[in-house]
């Protein structure tokens, strides 16, 4: 877990502008024609996001490493079938990642726990509200994992990965309106779970800055 470097609050580079999208489109096109070098670049661009997503899904750094590797190998095998029809590559890649995680749990009864995530937070050098953050993270993580798969997906993609609704819509194969509704219901469900866990308004003081 020590190697799981947590960067609190830091967003991953999400290709937002057109120039970046063009570059990724070019890399995808080359990779789909067999360029290992182009796919290597795609790996560099996306490995952190995929790892983080899987880490949140599994709560286990060793699993996250294994599965991240699997995602990219599967993606390479499948990239020839991928048609870059304006859909974001990230959406496709996260679909692959989600399936890899689902397969992982199908074949192996999950015994992962959140202790690692919590410990990783504990190792962050930010002593000020350490106990508060730890408790918050612990509660949030366990609550997220009690959501339905779709709710979990939208929460992870939107708030943990930082995708915009267009990308989430492409990843989940739903219209953006449906994503907005799903996001609302997911947050409501999460809130309810947290309330059940006595996580409520009283935790606010430590987060007053936001």
């Amino acid at each position: 877990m020590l190697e799981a470097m947590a960067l609190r609050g830091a967003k991953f580079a999400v290709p937002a502008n057109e120039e970046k999208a063009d570059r990724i489109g070019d890399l995808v096109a080359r990779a789909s024609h067999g360029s290992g070098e182009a796919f290597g670049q795609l790996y560099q661009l996306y490995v952190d996001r995929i790892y983080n997503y899987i880490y949140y899904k599994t709560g286990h750094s060793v699993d996250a490493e294994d599965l991240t590797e699997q995602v990219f190998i599967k993606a390479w095998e499948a990239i020839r079938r991928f048609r870059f029809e304006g859909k974001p590559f990230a959406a496709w890649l996260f679909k692959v990642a989600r399936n890899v995680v689902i397969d992982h749990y199908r074949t192996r009864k999950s015994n992962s726990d959140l202790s690692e995530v919590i410990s990783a937070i504990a190792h962050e050098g930010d002593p000020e509200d350490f106990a508060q953050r730890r408790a918050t993270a612990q509660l949030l993580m366990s609550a997220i994992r009690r959501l339905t798969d779709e709710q979990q997906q939208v929460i992870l993609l939107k708030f943990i990965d930082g995708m915009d609704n267009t990308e989430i819509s492409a990843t989940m194969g739903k219209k953006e309106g449906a994503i907005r509704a799903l996001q609302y219901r997911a947050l409501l469900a999460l809130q309810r779970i947290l309330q059940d866990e006595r996580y409520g308004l009283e935790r606010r003081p430590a987060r007053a800055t936001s």
Partner: protein
Amino acid sequence: MSEPEEILEQVLSGELTRQEAIERRPDLKDTLTLLTDLADDLQALPRYKPDPEFRHRARMRLLQHIQESKRRRRWWEPVFEPIHGLPGWASRVSAVVIAGGGLTFGVSYASASALPDDRLYPVKRAVEQVQVAMATSDEAKAITYLDLADRRAAEIAATAPDLDEIRLDRLTNDYGAALLKVSAAVQTLPDPSAALLDKVQARVASQATELEARAVNSAGRPAVQDKLVQAEVVASNVVDRVSLVAEKKGKPGPRDVQLAVNPPAAATAAAASLPTPRASASAAASAAANPSPAPSSATQYANPGAAPAPPSSSAPSAGTTALDTLFDRLWNEVSAAPFMGQRVRTQLEVDVANAKQAARAGKSEAAIADMNAFVSQLQAAVTAHQATQYTANRLTAQAKAIISALQSPAPGGYGLRTLPPQR
């Protein structure tokens, strides 16, 4: 617009401040506050990055996997090369389907016997490319190319009289290319198995014999004959080289090393390719047209114990009949047949000589019995790997023609212009 999920989205995307949102939907105040706080909490959760070392190692493994998967794919690349004579997609699809092994048996079976004129011929060639690509060991590759050489030789033999020169040229070049691969494989293998050497020698020699026979028969088309002779010379040359390899291995050549001991003069002149040395080619052509045992092989085959008098030299002058000519030709072929065991050869020569004498003495029954013995000895020799099937078939056909002539001596019936005077 005023739906709760839309309001929440506008807050999350920064279009509205919380305050503005609550002003629009005061009834949702508590919910919106809770949910936007929650969203903030979620966004504040740590992002986990993989350990840089893992990141690097995983990348290396991924690139290695990519390289390997490309190498595996290279396997199939031959399939995707366009096949001459068939639309690109058709040959690709056929080759993939056939190599993949589905409906396949029928098609590949049908295409296996396809000749250059047939519609399935390009399919056959495409399947062959896959077979070559699938052969993994060097020895397996040698055998695969040997199979290809066999097929090309058979195709040449079956179509040579009808093919135009360009296509025959392509076919003989393909044959030469396959043979060169066989030859190169045998010569570069660190320790070629005796079975492989045997197989290559026997089969290429058989091909040479077959091509030689076709060359003899195509005297009417000099261009075709030239090509056939060239191919035959290359084949003989390859047999020669393979025999050398076998000898170096301390293994005596199988059954008969006539071609190795005494290769056609042109074979040594011609490089192991298909150039067109006019002089040597025509020299070989004339040699092929008049097959006669070379001096060294004649002495080699002369068995002091049971040397039969060569019929052609014993009774060439007066009273030579069409039947005599058949006997003489058969005797010559037996004595010149490649890869035949010494004892078998002698026995067969004795049979022919005896049959000829009996026929000349009017003893048709005895002559037929001798020829039947000749045929059954040939079959036994093939079973004992003392003669090649091709040679046996050829000699058997000639023996049967003689038997037929002996049984029904009607003039003209078997191309016999004159009857033996004894009959």
